């Protein structure tokens, strides 16, 4: 997960989590619901697991905001 954006306090990189490493413009087949547009249940699970809950702490300054 990339949390180093300068515009945001935190970034969740769903693209990096769900793409097929062999074809980065496509979903990983396991994460593809079938329409190549929406994630499957496993895809949604992977996206949820990619969220660092520390982003929602009361002191977000420990992430990106602190570096500015």
């Amino acid at each position, binding site marked *: 997960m*990339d949390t*180093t*954006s*300068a*515009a*945001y*306090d*935190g*970034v*969740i*990189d*769903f*693209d*990096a989590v*769900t*793409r*097929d490493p062999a*074809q*980065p*413009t*496509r*979903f990983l087949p396991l994460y*593809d619901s079938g*329409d*190549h*547009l929406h*994630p499957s249940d496993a895809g949604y699970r992977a*996206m949820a697991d990619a969220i660092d809950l520390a*982003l*929602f702490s009361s002191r*977000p300054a420990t992430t990106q*905001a602190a570096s*500015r």
Partner: protein
Amino acid sequence: MIGADWLARARLASKCLPAIVVAATLLAVYPTLAQQAGAERWVGTWTTAPVGRPQNPPMPAPPGRPPIPQTPQRQSGPPAPAPFLHVNNQTLRQIVRVSIGGATLTPFEGAAYFTTVGEGKRQAVNQWIRRAPPTTG
């Protein structure tokens, strides 16, 4: 007598016809005239209560009397617009304590409306989300 009454009504109507036409015309153009007159009045004699701290302190009311209302200041035009507030991420953070997060767009090649142009835009947006300078937020 019914015929005479009808004739009298017809004669009266014919005499009143020009007045009726004038009245109808005035009613038809009245909204436009009123709007124009109102606009001129608004531009030329528009007044407002003083904004901010007045030049002179308000005159105290005599004991036991209601406060003296302040005279509105005469102005020649509409009030000045409020200062433009450029709200970006930093401004928003200063107004309220919030955290602003971003999430990249997931791939969609194979979908019905996939295009290479759209893919290029998706990658550009994702790159912006990952590395956008703070001044563009």
